[in-house]
């Protein structure tokens, strides 16, 4: 970034912390960008003529006489088709030493919200082929939903699989604190699938400074808004890992002496996350932004402030867990939830979908109870035993993430299992469906 004649330049820093610097300056706008000793920074507080800036790549080596150049505008992204098929860093600079800057119209990132009255109701079923999703937790365009997963689970793989199977016009990856290996995995996966004509990546890897991550979601979503609003396209945004994003937020707020609330996260965590997730939208002209994110958990703890606030914002969550009976990764039917599923199931899928889904999950829960009984050394009833057998089959033939079938097949398979293990009255489905589908 070059210095231009009209830009304000200062060289007397008043304070330096690990993530922020303060300088005396006049006529500076809130949220404005600056270059501090060659590094990008953003105004976060102005008191009188004392301006505090957050330096994205950290302040190591910054001196009291380092040059501060104010750029006079908040962060922006150039948008056009020129974005497609390319990999960028948190500032929107091309990765892999590529020199060509993005051509296109300059847009502010982190812009305003859609008027709720102009929104349309999300209404298009997204097919993923994974029964733990399509059958039990159907996704809809315009939805926002995270995977809740422990760090050792293959969340990025499952997410990539979902992205590639979903029929969308663009896939935008926002990688935050992505390991270099995972980054290359995504890249390779996209290349192999031959979808470079519909992907765009903004990535901050673990090798790059953590605070830079704060720009990633806004960059990815500014690009998404361009394609969804200007071009009426269906855009899928993948954000991984939002826990790392939140960690970066806490670094900045703690260094600005804000009173931390739960789990040393800033008190504004809910609003900060909501601003990102609420960019998911079904637009009146037909475009949409769907957000699938990853929130990594600390040993499955969902009461931690990050997953907790996320759950209150997103339209459900998908839990990954390893099924001990089959050894396969499944989408946990108990704790997972898609809040928008009722908009499409039984409407864009077969009529018996809602009832079949509920009955299967209930029987799976009975199996879990039977298992507890068994572990406590009690004798199992005949019903208990049948539940356990059902559960194993259900996990293997439907829940496992490596199963890839369409929704009607999922329903048929579930009916198969019902009649194999149960009596009609144990399944408790409306008579009109049982008489039609019971095998």
């Amino acid at each position, binding site marked *: 970034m070059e210095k231009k004649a009209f830009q304000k330049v200062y060289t007397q820093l008043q304070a330096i912390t690990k993530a922020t610097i303060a300088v005396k300056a006049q006529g500076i706008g809130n949220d404005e960008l600056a270059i501090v000793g060659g590094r990008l920074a953003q105004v976060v507080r102005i008191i009188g003529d004392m301006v505090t800036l957050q330096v994205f790549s950290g302040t190591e080596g910054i001196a009291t006489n380092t040059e501060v150049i104010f750029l006079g505008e908040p962060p922006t992204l150039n948008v056009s088709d020129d974005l497609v098929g390319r990999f960028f860093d948190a500032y929107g600079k091309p990765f892999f030493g590529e020199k060509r800057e993005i051509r296109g119209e300059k847009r502010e990132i982190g812009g*305003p919200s859609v008027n709720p009255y102009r929104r349309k109701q999300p209404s298009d079923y997204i097919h993923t082929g994974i029964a733990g999703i399509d059958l039990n937790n159907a996704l809809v365009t315009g939805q926002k939903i995270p995977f809740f997963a422990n760090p050792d689970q293959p969340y990025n793989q499952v997410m990539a699989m979902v992205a590639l199977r979903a029929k969308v016009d663009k896939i935008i990856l926002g990688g935050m604190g992505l390991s270099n290996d995972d980054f290359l995995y995504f890249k390779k996966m996209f290349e192999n699938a031959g979808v470079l004509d519909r992907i765009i990546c903004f990535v901050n890897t673990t090798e790059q400074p953590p605070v830079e991550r704060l720009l990633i979601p806004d960059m990815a979503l500014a690009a998404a808004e361009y394609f969804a609003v200007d071009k009426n396209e269906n855009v899928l945004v993948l954000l991984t890992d939002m826990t790392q994003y939140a960690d970066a937020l806490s670094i900045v707020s703690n260094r600005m002496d804000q009173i931390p609330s739960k789990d040393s996260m800033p008190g*504004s965590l809910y609003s900060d996350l909501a601003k990102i997730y609420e960019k998911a939208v079904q637009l009146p002209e037909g475009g949409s932004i769907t957000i699938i994110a990853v929130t990594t958990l600390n040993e499955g703890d969902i009461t931690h402030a990050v997953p907790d606030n996320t759950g209150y914002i997103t339209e459900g969550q998908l839990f990954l867990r390893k099924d001990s009976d089959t050894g396969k990764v499944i989408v946990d039917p108990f704790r997972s939830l898609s809040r928008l599923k009722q908009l499409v199931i039984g409407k864009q899928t077969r009529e018996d979908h809602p009832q079949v889904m509920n009955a299967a999950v209930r029987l799976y829960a009975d199996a879990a109870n039977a298992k507890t009984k068994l572990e406590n050394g009690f004798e199992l009833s005949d019903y208990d035993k049948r539940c356990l057998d059902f559960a194993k089959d259900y996990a293997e033939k439907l829940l496992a993430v490596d199963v890839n079938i369409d929704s009607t097949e999922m329903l048929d398979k579930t009916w198969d299992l019902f009649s194999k293990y149960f009596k009609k009255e144990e399944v408790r489905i409306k008579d009109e469906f049982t008489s039609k589908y019971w095998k």
Partner: protein
Amino acid sequence: MKTKGKVTGIIANLVIVEVDGPVSQNEICFVSLGEVKLMAEVIKITGSRAFIQVFESTRGLKTGNVVEFEGHMLEVSLGPGILSSIYDGLQNNLKTMDGVFLKRGEYTSPLNPDTEWNFKPLAKAGDTVKAGSYLGEVPENNLSHKIMLPFKFRGNYTVKSVADEGSYTVNHVIAVVVDEHGGEHDVTMVQKWAVKLPITCYKNKPRPFRIMETGVRIFDTFNPMAEGGTGFIPGPFGSGKTVLQHALAKQAEADVIIMAACGERANEVVEIFVEFPELNDPRTGRKLMERTIIVCNTSNMPVAAREASVYTAMTLGEYYRAMGLKTLLLADSTSRWAQALREMSNRLEELPGADAFPMDLSAVISNFYSRAGYVELENDKSGSVTFIGTVSPAGGNLKEPVTESTKKVARCFYALSQARADSKRYPAVDPVDSYSKYLEYPEIQEYLNETVEDRWHEKVAESKNIILRGKEAAEQINILGDDGVPLEYHDRFWKSELIDFIILQQDAFDKTDSSTPMERQKYMLNLVLEICRRSPEFENFEECASYYTDLINIMKQLNYSEYGSEKFMNYEKQILDKTGIKNNN
């Protein structure tokens, strides 16, 4: 002359202003930023420095920018045309805003100035009137919207003239009144009121004594809400708070429903826009949207306006109450409002209370809930604001400041349980922990005796007891094993399951099951209790389980069938045959 000021500090949406004249707490002001003016509210004053919270993004704001103070607090406009509106937290009309995106500094009029209303006078020249007296009325959807002497008017006035019956716009003068000193005042169909102040134009506020029917069985049968009562629904995410509130909004027996979508998902508000204009109000046959007002400040909208949104909604409720109407105010979620207070309090560097919430949180919540209530008006009519808020406790743990403060003031407690939600036992209201204090009011018990059945509350207590004993039996079975307990324990457990599955659980997405009229609730509770009072002989626990599972299955089908239909009768017969109960209808 208006007080002016200059920006001297900016911390997110907290702005510090050096002022040149008097300012008051909660005064509204506008901050200039280029072409636009951003609305803000004074939240603290020290010397000549005013701390203001800006209701919009402060991106690009600079020190030195000019601020103009308005001399009044945040006010709403009250008049015909509020019903069916969709407002943001500051009462801007979202329908009339341009473009797909919200624009900073764009404020739209809450009432359409061009709509003509058919005015009919109710007062005449020479009448003595005071604040809240009805001067005339206009039809608004299917309600009679009373045009009142503005609430700001103090003391007695004499009516000088009232407009003739005819069509007028809201800003037309429809009456002239004379105060005690001979001063004349014009009255239009619109008045303004500061949202933070309660509207108190009523004679008195007796204890609630009537039930507000909701069609939700776990409310009406088990823990009834009173008309003019207060209640809250705490629960972790995904436990069903919003679905429950939407059910109440659709089904509750109220004249006006106000939904404050406070800091939650935009798509949930869209659901209301989409569904309510299509759905019928079963009582009037009119579209639900006709009786509904939406105040929406979703999580991505400016945080400071979130706090305003619940007050705006409450003020609208009080306004319709003053017309002698039953209003139901639903706020989802009051925790987001508390969090907005917390964000601001932290920026002000105030001494934090528990979980970094402001110290006075309890008082703020209690003041707000106390604005609800059943009132007797000066003209001997009555009206009510019933308030039900949701609470979103961090980590689902009810030991946190918002839940605890709310529990002190709200009379009904509908605790949603994670375990029930996980096993899809919706609505996930915990039958043991939840309560309605109204059920203990003698006047409510009397009301139930008369409107439902003599000694109804005793039957409710009986069924609650069955639930409790069933829970204890289940614990014993879990510890000692199926064979380790007497058969009677299984019987007890299954009786509580029967009540759980048939009365407590209710499918919010089924056309028939979603709403149960009181008449049908009475039938169901009687039938279920009749079954529970019997003790059939079983050979073993498996036979017991199978007896009740069968019964639950048939009775679920009964719940899904239209009351009194052929299908219904058919299932009823199956139940009677199976249990040996005689049909006594």
